[in-house]
């Protein structure tokens, strides 16, 4: 538990030795800290909460470690004039009801009393909707300070807000801020410290009065909770009563497991029914009405001019950007630009990285004697590092673009434009961008699903992204199409992309209607005013994404790469099996190369992976794949572009020459039908290491990761089988 020596919580802690609740969201980093004020930043999406967090913490921030939680929560510790403040950036939420992972986490952190002070960040131009959350925060019995953010926009709209009156009416200190310019931050800091040092007993804050009937009901439930249970040590009983009356399933189950809680639940159930019978409405609706009623009243009293309907700039822009005919072409243009930025521009630094590593490899090779250890360093480790670093430019560029789209407010419009299409696949409009980016590279695409709001939508999108044919797979297509379908390469490759999309649509609908059925997905999406992004916020976002990738995923990808390399190189082929240096009596370098290629080919066959290939070969027999192809598939499972070079090695064409490999492949007389089935298999069969690690990290679920790998394998096999069998029936097998 926390933290700052505020008396009440400390006493509670002593009474309740065990952790309050076993939800998987305990603040690990907060756990043992003392002598600091813990400040949670809460607020609606688009309220500028993150800007304020950046302004408050500067560079002193990091992603907090919440075990088992996939929602990214940032923390920042800042010390100033002897006081240490620890800021927690809660996920942006409209309320604290348990409908999405973000809301549950935000609520849990607040419930656990981890925060001494809650700064509620409010978009000044949208007071009513933003203040709804305040009523919930006050119901929780929290000490709240309001940051009236984007105050400049309020002033610009010619409305006059009497801040002092607002503060008095709400019973909460209110500090106007302009986060992106850092204005009001010092004042906010001072108010936080002041409020935190006030004695706890001073009840300055009001909570919502819900009207006599509801208040009587609340009192009754609270009384029973107080008399029959010990929940009062941990929670605000009034809040618990409120949630029981609302019929909140999570709280209901918390009370249900509490000794003596059954009676309170029964009373609450009775009261809910009674209220429904009396009013013809559920208590939940009445509560929401009361909350909005209170807020609307206060806003009306302290706002002297009604806010202008909307900054005309936004309306003007929307007239074009979401125009009936122009909207979608413009959107597609932006997507094209984002794709180019990420993958074309991104390939330039990727080239630098590759050259750098190649240079390093030659240095190592030159500096050390040839042998297994040098091989480990050059091929295993440097290869693995390359496999990690190669993603970074894409991640940086993609998140630069995505930050730009999000911070300007265009992201919401993109979802608005695309939802019709995405919804038909059982997805959310916001899924479009991650899926599209999947065609470039699955790893940053999976990381981009963070923009989706519900866990259901994120998970479903993540399960579909690996079906998007990424550029690594393209290399395999080019080789095979060139070897087996000369003159028809374009059509063959195009057909694979079409197949990729069709299968994604099909799987999306299938999963949406089976596994994900009934799970809440909705499109209640705010379309915020367009705003100018601040370079600082974008850079922070890009930096966080890059370091997140390196810290949370880089290590795993590196480790897996080394393991795969190891399995492909060990056990070593006994050196005595054939004497390569003696054999080429002609002395020509070409023959020596050939011999070396031969050696490499045999080595792979002899290695663990080669043996595995022989072992699993029967699985691929019905698809008509040769043993060489099976081995290439296994080696390529973690990194698909490797399928090409592995085939080169196995067929003894060397790993570098694509021309040679094409000729060798052609000479195998493999029927084109089988070659096509092979491509279909490559398209779907398993995500690369990077994708698997990213998927595991972003979903936080081992089970779903296993599911992903299994379903993709089955899918690939089934489709390849259909291609082979279907083709044979149609008489396409020559």
């Amino acid at each position, binding site marked *: 538990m926390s933290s700052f020596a505020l008396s009440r919580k400390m006493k509670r802690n002593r009474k309740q030795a065990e952790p309050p609740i076993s939800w998987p969201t305990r603040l690990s980093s907060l756990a043992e800290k003392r002598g600091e004020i813990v400040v949670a930043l809460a607020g609606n999406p688009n309220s500028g909460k993150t800007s304020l967090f950046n302004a408050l913490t500067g560079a002193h921030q990091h992603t907090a470690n919440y075990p088992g939680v996939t929602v990214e929560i940032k923390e920042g510790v800042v010390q100033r004039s002897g006081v240490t403040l620890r800021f927690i950036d809660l996920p942006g939420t*409209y*309320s604290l*009801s348990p*409908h999405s992972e973000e809301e549950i986490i935000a609520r849990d952190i607040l419930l656990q009393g981890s925060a001494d002070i809650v700064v509620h960040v409010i978009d000044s*131009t*949208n007071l*009513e*909707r933003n203040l*709804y959350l305040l009523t919930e925060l006050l119901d929780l019995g929290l000490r709240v300070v309001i940051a009236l953010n984007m105050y400049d926009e309020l002033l610009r709209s010619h409305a006059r807000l009497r801040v002092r009156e607002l503060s008095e009416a709400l019973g909460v200190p209110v500090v106007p801020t302009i986060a992106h310019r850092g204005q009001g931050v010092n004042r906010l800091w001072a108010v936080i410290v002041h409020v935190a040092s006030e004695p706890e007993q001073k009840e300055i804050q009001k909570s919502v009065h*819900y*009207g*006599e*009937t*509801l208040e*009587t009901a609340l009192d*009754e439930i609270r009384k029973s909770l107080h008399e029959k249970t010990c929940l009062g040590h941990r929670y605000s009983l009034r809040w618990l009563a409120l949630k029981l009356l609302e*019929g909140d399933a999570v709280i209901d189950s918390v009370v249900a497991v509490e000794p003596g809680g059954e009676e309170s639940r029964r*009373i609450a159930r*009775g009261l809910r*029914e*009674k209220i429904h*019978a*009396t*009013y*013809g*409405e559920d208590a*939940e*609706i*009445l509560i*929401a*009405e*009361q909350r*909005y*009623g209170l807020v609307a009243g206060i806003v009306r009293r302290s706002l002297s001019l009604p*806010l202008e*309907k*909307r900054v005309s700039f936004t309306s003007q822009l*929307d007239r074009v950007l*979401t*125009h*009936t*005919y122009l*909207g*979608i072409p413009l959107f597609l243009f932006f997507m094209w630009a984002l794709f180019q930025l990420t993958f074309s521009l991104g390939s330039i630094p990727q080239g630098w990285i590759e050259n750098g590593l190649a240079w390093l490899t030659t240095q190592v090779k030159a500096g050390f004697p040839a042998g297994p250890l040098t091989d480990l360093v050059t091929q295993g480790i440097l290869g693995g590092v390359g496999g990690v670093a190669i993603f970074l430019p894409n991640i940086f560029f993609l998140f630069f673009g995505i930050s730009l789209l999000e911070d300007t407010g265009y992201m*919401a419009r993109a979802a*608005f*434009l695309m*939802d*019709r*299409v995405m*919804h038909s696949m059982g997805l959310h*409009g916001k899924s479009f961008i991650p899926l599209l980016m999947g065609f470039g590279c699955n790893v940053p695409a999976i990381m981009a699903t963070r923009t989706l709001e519900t866990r259901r939508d994120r998970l479903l999108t993540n399960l579909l992204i690996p079906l998007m044919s990424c550029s690594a797979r393209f290399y395999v297509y080019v080789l095979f199409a060139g070897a087996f379908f000369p003159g028809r390469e374009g059509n063959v490759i195009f057909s694979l992309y079409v197949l990729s999309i069709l299968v994604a649509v099909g799987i999306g609908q299938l999963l949406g209607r089976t596994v994900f059925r009934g799970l*809440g997905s*909705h*499109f*209640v*999406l*705010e*379309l*915020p005013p367009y705003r100018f992004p601040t370079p600082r916020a974008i850079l922070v976002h890009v930096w966080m994404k890059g370091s997140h990738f390196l810290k949370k995923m880089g290590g795993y990808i590196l480790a897996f790469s080394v393991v795969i390399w190891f399995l492909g190189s060990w056990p070593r082929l006994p050196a005595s099996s054939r004497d390569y240096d003696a054999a080429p009596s002609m002395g020509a370098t070409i023959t020596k190369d050939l011999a070396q290629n031969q050696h490499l080919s045999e080595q792979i066959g002899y290695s663990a992976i080669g043996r595995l290939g022989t072992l699993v070969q029967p699985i691929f027999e019905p698809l008509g794949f040769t043993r060489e192809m099976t081995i290439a598939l296994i080696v390529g499972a973690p990194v698909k572009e490797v399928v090409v070079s592995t085939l080169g090695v196995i067929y003894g064409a060397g790993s570098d020459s694509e021309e040679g490999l094409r000729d060798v492949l052609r000479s195998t007389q493999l029927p084109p039908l089988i070659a096509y089935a092979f491509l279909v298999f490559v398209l779907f069969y398993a995500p690369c290491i990077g994708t698997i690690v990213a998927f595991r990290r972003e979903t936080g679920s081992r089970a779903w990761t296993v599911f992903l790998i299994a379903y993709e394998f089955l899918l690939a096999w089934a489709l390849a089988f259909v291609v082979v069998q279907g083709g044979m029936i149609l008489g396409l097998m020559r």
Partner: protein
Amino acid sequence: MQLPESKLSSSLEDYLEAIFLLSWKDGEVRVAEIADALGFSKPSVSEALTHLEAKGLIQHEKYRGVRLTPEGRDFAQQVYERHKTLFIFLTRMLGVPSAQAALEACRIEHTISSDTYDRLRRFVGEQLAQTSDGLSRLSELSPGESAEIVRIQAPGWFRHRLLEMGFIAGEVVTLEKIAPLRDPIEFVLKGYHVSLRREEAAHVFVRPIEKDETES
């Protein structure tokens, strides 16, 4: 329907109403529950129950639940009807806030004469018939059209989401724009813009507002 002239004190009517409401599921209700619901002590509830039993309106066996007799059920239903009609009248037609309306309906329901009630009932019935004819779904508005939210009929969690976003009865919503592919739809309420899918907006029942009405 002729309302029986009240033969009961208002508190006994309250008891009857409470028993009616609490027993509508199982057909019976325990004394403790009645005491809970009305906030009276168990002994005073027992006393009242004896009165009601003497009038043949309920059956109460020791250690068993309380049941309404057919006569009792009719009577209670009438009391409850009165309450409901008054509540609808106060909230929907006079705009009294629901909490206040519930309290006042509780008081008026015992004192209103059967004649006045009959007229009120007819009036409310006519008004309701009119307004529910005029109801449309939020998804049926055309661009630029405004409407007042009357009620939301949606699955629990989704309704909660709408409530939190400000879709509450009495709120005025304007349809701003329909997406190029005809779905979703952009609305303005409480001074901000929000989009809903067509099928989602169909859960919200509204009363369209004439142009002149919005301006005045």
